[in-house]
């Protein structure tokens, strides 16, 4: 009889341990899930402006007989580069009239006198160098 009681107690203990372990595991999982609960955060982004598209100028049928302005924005070495571009035109497209101009002021400065000259006398503009 004692032996039966002893076996029953051991069996109950095993069952208790068996069912208890998953409970503990679930608790751990539940804690993990709680730590991973979804939250809502606010965007730190600003508001970008709308873009208004601008008109591109019509292209030329040909450069023959046209005046192309080579405009130097003022960055170091641009004058040397544009001289080479001018020489290339003279050697390869001699009918193109090339005019070199150094834009007034800092890179970002406007040069209304030059813009007016290009509008009146030029057909196209090549500007360099963007760095």
């Amino acid at each position, binding site marked *: 009889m004692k032996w039966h009681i002893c076996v029953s107690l051991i069996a109950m203990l095993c069952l208790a341990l068996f069912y208890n372990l998953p409970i503990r595991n679930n608790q751990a999982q539940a804690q993990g899930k709680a730590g*991973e609960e*979804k*939250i*809502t*955060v*606010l*965007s*730190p*982004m*600003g*508001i*970008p*402006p*709308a*873009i*208004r*598209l*601008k*008109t*591109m*100028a*019509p*292209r*030329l049928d*040909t450069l023959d007989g046209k005046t*192309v302005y080579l*405009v130097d*924005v003022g*960055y*170091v*070495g*641009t004058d*040397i*580069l544009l*001289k*080479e*571009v001018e*020489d*290339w035109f003279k050697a*390869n*497209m001699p009918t193109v009239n090339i005019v070199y101009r150094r834009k007034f*002021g*800092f*890179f*970002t*400065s*406007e040069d209304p006198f030059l*813009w007016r000259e*290009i*509008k009146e006398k*030029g*057909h*196209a*503009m*090549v*500007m*360099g*160098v*963007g*760095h």
Partner: protein
Amino acid sequence: MSAVVDHCINVESKLGVPTVPLIISEFHDQVKLHRKKKGMPGLRVTYLISPVWGKTAKRLRNEIVAKSPVSETMIMQEIVGNLTKPLTAEEKKMGTIEQSAGPERFTDTPDNLRQYFMDNRMTDYLPIILPTEEKVAEMLKGTSHHPDEVVGKMAAHTQFPGAGMEIFEHWSYTVKTVAINAVMAGMKPEYLPVLLAVASTGKEGLSVSDNSFTEMLVINGPIRDEIKLNYGIGAMGPFSQANSTIGRAWNLLSLNAGNCGRVGTTYMGVVGNPMNWNNIVIAENEEDSPWQPFHVRHGYKPTDNVVSLFEGWGIISAKNSKFSKWTREPDFPGAIKRILIDQDMLFGATAVLSPVVAHFVKEAGFDSVDKFTIWIMKPEEGQWPDFRSIRDINIIITGGSNNNYWSYGGMRYFQSVLIDKWR
């Protein structure tokens, strides 16, 4: 880069003259985005082999008859084609493109959100405080201004007045946006008026310039003690929450609200700058200075709380200069003059003196900063002045008095703004 693109867009759209901007190839991504932002996504650019600066005529001659590193077509033939090939239907498109910076809220687990913020370059890659509604509401207690009030607008480059056209697009932001970025940086609500004052200027905390600039704030007035800014030992270092987080918050605000710091488009610093993490934040040590504080010298009252903005290459110790030797009877005015006049006039020079060094200078006969600055500017016999105006030289006093050290750098002063307006 941007200036050339902008001039060409203006010449095309305003004068009706076809153009070809010549840009070095490394700026391809930036140009692609920039020409779209400026309303001419089809602007025909010819990319050159970089760099141009420093090359001989012979080398450039060979390079312009080579293939463009971007299009793989011959450079000179491409220039001719860009001026003569008829516009496509896409290039003729007109209208307005609305832009969005994404959703106003994100919902996910904290780990995923942190990863999302990093993946989308909304952080400086250091840990952030996630800006929940509750934390942002708490931060907003630092100001009486309405959360929806527009504070200002920011671009990746601030143009000096009169320096010509604005190049980068300006993004706008509200008080709430500033507070969100302040939360992320780890700021306390009582610091918020400082950041709002900085934000109101529109000055970016991360400059696009290939110079790898850093930015600097000088804070004056009683607020220094209110928010526990450190202006004693280690004043420019990370030794108080206010010093550490205000400059960081300015950067996060610039990244997110101003669209700055996007490598390849709105950030082009060649070697970068370690000071970009939280910029340079200096609370002046007004109490130990022998002179009037910086803000008073710029027309403010001593009791005004003022933040002043600078930009440049950074601040380093003067000790390593050959003009700054350890000697028994150091000549501080002479050393400061020799080091400052060695700086490039374009950005001027800023000296950050410890109080003890400032007292040495005063005792040498300079009872005001102006007197000292005029003396620094005065050229040697027969030489041209190194600086254009007294404003090109700035003297800031901060730090401890435990030794005779000072720092300096090419930092130019932009402007000062009142902080209390944003309380």
